[in-house]
C-alpha cells in the first residue's frame, strides 16, 4: 500500500489532545506519524485550510439490511456514510430478521467487510424478536461482534424485563441503549404534543413519554449498577436527569441527534413528513437544553438515528408517514453549527463523533494515535453547499434539509489508509 502524506492540514485528534497545523503520515493502513518530518510519500493530499480528524463514528444507524433493502442496504448505507465522513457506524437490530442471534450479526459484518467502505458494528437486540420479553444471548452476540444492546424502535416497556436486562448486561459490562418512550403515553402520536400538534389536529407525543421512561430506567440502572445509554435524547427533562445521574456517579450516558439540536417542532408546520421522527422534534426550550447538555458534557455523543425510508412510506399524510429521517450525510455540517455558535470547540465537537462513542463501545477507532487504523476524515468547515435530496447517496431521501444551505463539506474520507471518498466521488 502506498505511503500517504496528508500535509498542512489542521489536525485535530481529541483523544490525544492534538489540535494544530501539521502533517499526518499513513502507511500500510496505519497512522505512522504526526508531524513535520522529511520523508517521501507516494501520495500527497494537500489539506491546507482543512480539518484533518479521525474518521467519524455514528453509533446510531438503521441500515435496513437484512429485510428492507428497498429502503437502504449495507452497501448504500456505507456509501452514504463515507460521503458524510463516517468510517464506523453501529447498526440497530430492528432488521428482518432482527439482530437477535449471532448469525445475523456475523452476516452483517461479513457483508460490510465485502463492501469495504465503512466499519459496521451491529447493536444486538436486548430481547428476542424485540418482543420485550425474553433476553437474547448477549454473550454469544458479543462474540459475534455486537458492541452494545438495544431494542431501538421498540422501547423496553416492561420494567421487570428492563431490570433483568440491565442486571444481566451489567454482569458482563455490556451497555443497554434505550429508545426511551412510554408507549402508553405516545400511542397514535406522530409529532411532539403541544401547540403545533393542536394546530395541525394530529395526535401528539407528550414529552413525558420520554421523561418517564428515562426516569424509570435510571432508577433501575442505579439498582443494577448497570451501563445505560439514552438514545437520541430530545427533552429538557431527560437531559437534566442524565446530568443528575452522572453527578451521582451512575454509568448513564446519552447521545443527541443533529435534528434535535438544530430543529424544533415548528419544522412540521405544513404537515412536513420529512420532519417526522421519534422522538419528535420538540420545543425551542428542549432544543436549547439539548445544546446545553452537549456543551456541559452531559451528552457525550452525537449520533444521527439515520432512518432511511422509501418515498412510498413517506408520501401520505403526516399521521401515517413513517418515522425517521436520513442523517449520515448531514451529521457533520449540521453539527458544525455548534462550533459556529460557540457551543463547542471544534475539538469537542469532533470528540463527540469520534473518541467519545469509541470509548463507550470499546472500539479501537476514533483516534489518530500512531499505530491506529488510518480512518481519517478531511473536511472544509467553511465550505457551503445546497442540499439536494436527489443527490443524497443514501437510498433514503427523507431529509428536512432539502434545499437548505449547508456549511461544512467532507473532502476526503480515508478507511484503513485507503481513500474511499474524495470530493464527491466514492472510490
Amino acid at each position: 500500500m502506498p505511503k500517504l502524506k496528508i500535509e498542512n492540514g489542521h489536525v485535530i485528534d481529541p483523544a490525544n489532545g492534538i489540535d494544530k497545523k501539521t502533517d499526518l503520515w499513513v502507511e500500510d493502513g496505519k497512522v505512522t506519524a504526526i508531524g513535520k518530518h522529511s520523508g517521501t510519500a507516494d501520495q500527497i493530499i494537500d489539506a491546507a485550510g482543512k480539518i484533518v480528524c479521525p474518521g467519524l463514528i455514528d453509533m446510531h444507524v438503521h441500515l435496513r439490511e437484512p429485510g428492507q433493502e428497498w429502503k437502504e442496504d449495507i452497501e448504500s448505507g456505507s456509501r452514504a456514510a463515507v460521503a458524510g465522513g463516517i468510517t464506523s457506524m453501529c447498526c440497530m437490530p430492528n432488521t428482518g430478521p432482527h439482530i437477535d442471534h449471532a448469525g445475523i450479526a456475523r452476516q452483517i459484518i461479513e457483508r460490510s467487510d465485502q463492501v469495504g467502505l465503512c466499519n459496521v458494528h451491529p447493536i444486538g437486540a436486548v430481547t428476542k424478536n424485540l418482543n420485550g420479553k425474553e433476553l437474547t444471548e448477549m454473550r454469544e452476540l458479543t462474540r459475534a461482534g455486537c458492541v452494545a444492546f438495544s431494542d431501538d424502535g421498540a422501547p423496553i416497556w416492561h420494567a421487570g424485563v428492563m431490570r433483568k436486562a440491565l442486571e444481566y448486561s451489567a454482569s458482563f459490562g455490556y451497555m443497554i441503549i434505550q429508545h426511551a418512550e412510554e408507549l402508553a403515553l405516545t400511542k397514535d402520536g406522530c409529532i411532539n404534543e403541544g401547540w403545533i400538534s393542536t394546530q395541525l389536529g394530529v395526535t401528539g407525543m407528550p414529552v413525558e413519554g420520554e421523561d418517564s421512561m428515562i426516569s424509570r430506567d435510571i432508577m433501575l440502572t442505579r439498582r443494577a449498577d448497570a451501563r445505560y445509554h439514552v438514545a437520541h435524547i430530545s427533552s429538557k427533562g431527560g437531559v437534566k436527569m442524565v446530568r443528575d445521574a452522572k453527578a451521582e456517579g451512575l454509568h448513564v450516558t446519552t447521545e443527541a441527534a443533529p435534528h434535535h439540536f438544530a430543529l424544533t417542532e415548528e419544522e412540521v408546520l405544513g404537515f412536513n413528513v420529512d420532519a417526522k421522527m421519534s422522538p419528535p422534534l420538540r420545543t425551542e426550550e428542549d432544543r436549547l437544553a439539548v445544546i446545553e447538555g452537549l456543551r456541559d458534557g452531559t451528552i457525550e455523543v452525537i449520533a444521527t438515528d439515520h432512518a432511511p425510508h422509501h418515498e412510498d412510506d413517506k408520501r401520505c399524510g403526516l399521521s401515517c408517514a413513517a418515522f425517521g429521517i436520513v442523517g449520515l450525510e448531514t451529521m457533520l455540517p449540521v453539527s458544525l453549527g455548534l462550533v459556529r455558535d460557540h457551543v463547542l470547540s471544534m475539538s469537542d465537537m469532533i470528540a463527540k463523533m469520534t473518541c467519545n462513542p469509541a470509548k463507550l463501545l470499546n472500539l479501537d477507532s476514533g483516534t489518530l494515535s500512531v499505530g491506529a487504523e488510518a480512518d481519517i476524515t478531511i473536511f472544509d468547515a467553511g465550505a457551503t453547499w445546497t442540499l439536494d435530496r436527489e443527490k443524497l447517496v443514501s437510498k433514503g431521501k427523507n431529509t428536512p434539509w432539502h434545499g437548505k444551505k449547508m456549511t461544512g463539506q467532507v473532502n476526503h474520507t480515508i478507511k484503513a489508509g485507503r481513500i474511499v471518498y474524495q470530493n464527491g466521488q466514492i472510490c
Partner: protein
Amino acid sequence: MKSLKHLFGIADLDREQIEYLVNLGDSFIDINRRSLKKAPTLRGKTVINLFFENSTRTRTSFEIAGKRLSADVINISASTSATKKGESLLDTGQTLAAMQPHVLVIRHSISGTCEFLAEHLENTAIVNAGDGAHEHPTQILTDLLTLKQAWGTPEGKTITMVGDIAHSRVARSHLLAAKKLGYKMRIVAPRTLLPAEVERYGCEVYHDFDEALPGSDAVYMLRVQSERLTDSCAFPSIREYHEAYGLNSQRLKKAGDDCLVLHPGPMNRGVEIATDVADSVKSHILAQVEHGVAIRMAVLAALCGGDGGDDGKE
C-alpha cells in the same frame, strides 16, 4: 380580493374572503327555497365528492349544492380501511384527477390530506370537507351564515363551544375564524377532551359548563363520540358526561334569553344535547343544515370562477 385556488381551511382565508363566501352563500339561500331549484352557474363543471369517512349531511349538502348549480356531481365513498395507507390515497386522488374534474371535495380521517393531495394534483381545485381533527371550513362558513342571519355580524359576540375540543376540526376552524372576525370563543370540556395549549388560540377555557354560560350569545354543542370512552378514558360514562356537559333547557337559562343553540350534527340526543333544547325555538340547528347547502354552492362557485350571477358564462 385574493382569489381562491383551493379551500383547505379557515387558516388560509383572510377576513375579506370569509365575508365574501358568507355573503355569496347568503345570496344562494333563495334558490334553495324556490320551486325550481336550479341555476346554470356551474354548467359543464364536474365535482367529485370523495369521502373516506362516513358522512350523510356534508356529502349530501355538497351533492345538492353542486346539482343545484348545474354541475355534474359524482359521489365516491372509499372505505377508510382500504385506503389508510398513503399511496393508495394518492393513487385514488391522482386517478380521479386524471378524469379532469374541476373540483375534488375530500373528507378524510388524516389531518392534512387536502394539502398533501394538492401537492401532487394539478388543475383540480380541492375543497376540504373535513380532515382529521384539523379543519372543516365549510361547516364554519355555514355557521357564520347562520349567525349573520341571526345577528347581522358575529363581531363582539361570545360563542361557547362544549365537548370534545381535542378531536374536533369544527372547534379548530372556529377558533381560527373567531380571531379573524372578532368574536370570542369560550370552550368548555374536561381536560381529557382539550388539546394541548389550546388557550393559545386566544379563547377562554372552562371546565365548568355552568360557569361558562352567563354572557354567552350562542352555545355550540359538539357531538360526543362514544369511542372516546373506550379508547382513551376521556370520561367515565355517558351519564356523567351528560350531567357535567349536556345541554338541557334548565341549564340554558343561565345563558340568558337571546342565546342561540348550534350543533354541527349529527346530534346525540340525551348525551350532549337534550331534546327539549334541540327542538326549541332557540335551536338553529336545522338552519345550519339549510345554510350548509348555500355555503357549499358559494364555495363551489367561487372555486370554479362563478359568482352566482353570471348565468353560466365561461
